[in-house]
Structures are given as C-alpha cells and as structure tokens.
C-alpha cells in the first residue's frame, strides 16, 4: 500500500466512522485539539485500524503520535 492509498483509507475512516469534518484533517492537525479525538475515540480507533489494516495498535507505540501526519507515519511503519 503506497502512502496516498494509506492516507485515503485513514481519512475515510476518520470522516465516516468518527464523523470528523474533512477540513479539519490536514498533516499538522492535532488529533485531540484540532480533530476532537478523545480517549474513548482511541478505543474505537484500535478496532477500526485492526479492521482496515490488519494490526492492533499498541498504546505504548502511540506515545508522541499527536498529529494526523504522525498517525499515518505510524500506520505506514506497521503496515510495511
């Protein structure tokens, strides 16, 4: 999966499943402050990522992952 496909997939679930406005999704967007993702959303994100990318997020690996771009980087590392 190339980066464009991966970002498209991530964007889709953020819009469809978490109902985040598309304009709030940009590389430097903060997951909590800009996109409004809270701690309970992260519980759902584990399930969504497992369904979409076939791996389970480990909370300890998410330390420092606080923007949309970093979140996509993290998924990219795990998928590839």
């Amino acid at each position, binding site marked *: 999966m190339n980066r464009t496909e991966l970002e498209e997939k991530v964007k889709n679930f953020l819009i469809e499943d*978490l*109902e985040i406005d598309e304009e709030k999704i940009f590389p430097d967007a903060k997951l909590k402050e800009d996109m*409004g993702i*809270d701690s*309970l*959303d992260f*519980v*759902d994100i*584990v*399930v969504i990522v*497992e369904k979409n990318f076939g791996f*389970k997020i480990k909370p300890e690996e998410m330390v420092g992952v606080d923007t949309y771009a970093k979140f996509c980087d993290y998924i990219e590392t795990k998928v590839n």
Partner: protein
Amino acid sequence: MGIWSCLGTSLEEVKESLYNGKSGIGIEQERLTYGYQSALTGIVPKPMLKGLIDRHLRRGLSEEAEYALMASSQAFKQAGIDDEYLLNNEVGCIFGNDSSAKPVIEAAKIMDEKHDTELLGQSFIFQAMNSTVNMNLSTIFHLKGVNFTLSAACASGSHSIGLAYMFIKNGLQDMVLCGGAQETNYYSMASFDALGAFSKNMDDPTKASRPFDRDRDGLVPGGGAAALVLEDYDHAVARGAEILAEIVGYGFSSNGTSGISQPSDEGCARAMMRAMEDAGVKPSDVDYINAHATSTRQGDMYEAMAIDKLFRGEHALISSTKSMTGHECWMAGASEMVYSIIMMLNDFVAPNINLENRDEHTEHLNLTSKTVDTKVDIILSNSFGFGGTNSALVARKMK
C-alpha cells in the same frame, strides 16, 4: 410529555392513532429466521440521530436510549425547558428500563470470535447496562438531580412515574424527567418468545393483540419510549409552564405468591386501591381505566377480576391500548400514562380494538371496543410485571 411508539412519533400522531383505533403491529420476518415462534411486533421507526447530535453524545446510546432521547426532547420542549434552563437548574431523571440485549449479545459475539476485549470498542459498555437510558439522558441534557434507572419488569415505566411523583411530593426535587423505554430488536425478546406467550396470528397482524377477547392467542411485543416531565405544581405555575395533567396517586404492591409469572387479582387490586387512596378518589370518581391487559388469558383474567371487584357498577370506561400497541413492556406503564393523558386532553376514550367476543371474566366490565367521545377528568392506569410487581397511577385533568 413526549412519545416515540408504533402509534406515532409525536403527541399529535399518537392522538390520531388512538382516536382511530389504528394498530401499530406488523411482521418482522427476521424473527422467524432467527428462530422465534412469532414474527409479530410493534413496528417502531428508528430515529435518525446522525446530524442531529454530535457523535460523542450519540456513541453510548442503545436502541432504547435513542427512543428515550427522542421522547424526552419532545417532553422538555413541550414543558418549555431549554438547554439554558437545564444548565442552570436541578432536574432529576428516573427512567424505567429492564434490558439492553443487543449490545450485550453483539459484544459477546465479538468476544467469542476474537477473544480480545481491546477489539470491542468503547460503546458497548454504555449501551449494554440497564441504566443505559439514564446515563445517556443525564449526560446529554446535563441533568443535575436524582439519577437512577428503575427496573421492575413490565411495570418499570409506571413505577418510574410513581417514584418521580414521590420525590416531588416529598419536596426533594422540583422537576424530574421520568418515563420508560423498550428495545424492539429481535435479540431482546427471544427469551420471552421461548415461553410461548406471543400470539402466532401472523396472517392478520393488526388483529393479533386482543386483550379480554375470548379468541386471543397471546401477546405481541412492542416498544419505543415515553417521557414525562413531572414538576412541583407551584413551581410549574410560577414558571408559566403548560400543565397537561396532575399526577395525584401512586399505588404499588407485590403479589406475595410463589409463581414468578403468575398474576394475582388481589395484588392488582391492592395497587389500584392504594393509588386511589393516595389520590383521595373513589372508584365512582374514575372516568377511565387504562388496563394493563396484555392479551394473555391468565393476565387478562386476573386483572378483569380485580377491576370487577373494585369497579362493578361504576361508570369508568375501560380499555387496553395494548390492543393497538402490543405490549410495550418496560415502557408500557409510561406510554400508557401518555396515551391516557392524550385522551384526557382531547375528550375521548380510545378503543380496546379486536374485542369481538368478550371472555367469561369481563361480563361486568365497562369495556369499550369503540372510540367514545366523552369528558375524562380522572384516569387510572395499571401496570403489572413478572415477579408480582404491581403499579397503578391516578392522574387528574387540570381545571
């Protein structure tokens, strides 16, 4: 007050259905595929909440909590209560609910497959508990008063109104949102269907629920939600609120018998008497009785005996609106108060439809199978549940 039921999703729609004796019962074919003996159910529209409220407020809502949210929003609006009022005043919430099967079963299915709680997501816990309705309504509406769920089988909705009334009568709260909610998904009623208690008259769904009729063959499950904003009278007057009716009596009892599903005429009668005594009314004062009668032979019979004991020769008209709605179970006691107050406000008594051949116990009951245009000043509404729990409420028209 507010309502979301198979008879309509507004007070006006429900009034029309009640007046015209329109049944809300139909067929859900999936029930047969799932393994039910009967596909009959009240057909309740699903609210469209996406776009109406934020996902963060929506994610913990079970099916019945969604219905309760719609009914409660109507009730607050009708009572003239807006967001600002709720943020600045203490309002309580006591809702009747006694199951939330769908999220429990769906979560169990995921666990059976994945064996990993991290793959369940966050919403199941808030949807699966019996208190799902209370916890969601209290956070969505920012309620600050008494907050708990009342589970008392098919009398849950009625007891919730009774308890809210007690909180207000005792000066503990000025205002309490109360009511009842009932899920309608096919997971929720399988174990009830197992008892063989449901009608199998699937060829003629609107004729299937026939309380007090000789040819009944069981009840039809239904659901939705009903909500009432109960308020201290002086508080409501000072606020300039539109007061629809006054709750004046609450009666309760437990049968004290050993059969868990066994009704009791004596238990029913004690609840009714206690409600009338609390209200300071006599049987001759009551204009309408909304019977609990679910369209089962045993339940109808014991209630008929109890009503006969107290009301033989009195003028009160009697009907079971379950003939149109089916048995709305945990919601029924609340929805039937809403139905009765609608009748009171609009000067009619709704019919006990499908009452074509009365059974042998109803000879002296003033049952009506047709809509009657008449003044209704005082109503009595009965609700009874498994385990012998009984509740009766008396309401009076505002002068």
